[in-house]
């Protein structure tokens, strides 16, 4: 039994995606990982899920979101979701950025549950899962 059914990984760095996905799969964190390369593609997907156009099996129960991306960055993605009331999925920021401004700018969104620095490890994701199930969405933004 995996921690999550479906994780949506939003990141333009394909090497990073390869490694993240590998950890998720090997550690049985999620049954399935979908990868998109920017915020716009991610938005299209969550929008379709909200409008029930997509197969619900396709819809993520966790979004791992990078910040710096082309086309639409992570913050813009959060903004557009927020503006369209598409916030019923938990988001965890997964980034290389150690800039506090990035942390401040993203964790203010209600569906952003955590902020972690790459690389993703099994311990980190387990920690997130614990927090999500315990607090049921209660925010925790530790390193």
């Amino acid at each position, binding site marked *: 039994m995996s921690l999550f059914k479906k994780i949506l990984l939003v990141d333009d*760095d394909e*090497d990073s995606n390869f*490694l993240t996905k*590998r950890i998720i799969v090997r550690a049985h964190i999620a049954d399935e990982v979908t990868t998109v390369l920017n915020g716009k593609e991610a938005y299209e997907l969550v929008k379709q899920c909200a409008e029930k156009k997509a197969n619900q099996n396709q819809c993520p129960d966790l979004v791992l979101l990078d910040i710096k991306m082309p086309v639409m960055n992570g913050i813009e993605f959060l903004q557009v979701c927020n503006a369209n009331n598409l916030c019923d999925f938990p988001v965890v920021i997964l980034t290389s*950025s150690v*800039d*506090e*401004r990035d942390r401040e700018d993203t964790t203010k969104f209600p569906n952003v549950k955590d902020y972690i620095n790459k*690389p993703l490890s099994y311990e980190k994701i387990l920690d997130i899962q614990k927090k999500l199930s315990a607090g049921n969405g209660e925010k925790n933004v530790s390193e």
Partner: protein
Amino acid sequence: MALNSNGSFINQRDHQNQQSHRPEEYPNLVAKEKDLYKKIFDSLPALVFIKGRNNQLLEFNKTFEEFMRVSREELLTKSTYELFPDAEKYREDDLEVIETGKPKLNIIEEVIVPGDVLYLKTDKVPLINDNNETIGVLAISQDITQQKSLQDKLATTQEKLRRLNNELEERAKARTKELMESNEELKRINTDLDNFIYIASHDLKSPIDNIDGFILFLKESLKDRTTTDEEKVFERIGASVNRFRKTIAELHKITKVQRNLEDNIEEVDLNEIIEDIKTEIFFTIQNARARIITSFDVPIINYGKKNIMSILYNLITNAIKFRSPERKPVVKISTKKEEQGIVLSVEDNGLGLAPDEKDKLFIMFKRLHDHVEGTGVGLYIVKRIVENNGGKIEVESEKGKSTMFKILISKSKKHVAV
């Protein structure tokens, strides 16, 4: 002045004499007096002349004659229009005096005489006869050619001076503009540099994270199948990656400094700051058996808390890092109120610096010692903070003996706690 009935010139005294004495009774006296007045009249340093209503010169003194450089005969026979090119202009003043019966004073006029252009300052008064009729104009003129030329020279000099002043002002303005432009340029370059460092630190971090991840991947894949040499290579790669990460973290610190420059200025207790730092680097102090001595003449200053913390942290850890192996490290931290402002000093008894090393001290990534760990951004950060707060940092050092960093907190009043 008045004219007698035959139209010839006499003065008021003559006139009175005629009334009080019969001239034929005192022929000698009258002749003598007339002679005397004529002499006085001629030797007056002013030009005195009389013109009739018809604009004809009736009488004038020697000074006038000499000034005009025309013979008496000519002056008396020729019309003023023939004599003076600007006669019409003078005539206007004459007519005004004749018509109004009032004097006209301080007329400054240019007079063209044979071979020269001269200047006169003239007073014109109406000339009245016995019947109280204005029959002409009595004029007294001063030759002001010299004064005028001096005045002109003065005006020219003044004009030159004004022009020079203007030029100077223009040059100063241009220079100020240039300076402001270079200042802007420097600010822009600084911002660019900060942005560059920020982007570099950020963009370098992702690939290094990936390399880290790929190494882990390889290690796991090759588990139990690697040779000792290969394992050593993995170790070396890991160490290199870690060093890379550290450098990026230091770079990131620099970008943080730039942002913290806006750090709120507040009253900070230096004793408290030192205590905080001592707690933070407790083990470093203990391992080096270092002593930290403080003596604050000014214990409270106005400064950004993070900034002063950063300055003192860097200087104290440096002092301990670069200790002499021959003696226990002693770090003296003090503040003094000096003429130019509050001076914060951090002095050690460590390795010291050679004169040529002092200049390289504040350069980014410049490391003067190899035997200690470091990335070489600490002093760069310190200098940046100090200067951005309007202060100055100096270093005094003797190789093998000591180093003292002196920081002029700021010339501005805002850094002085009341």
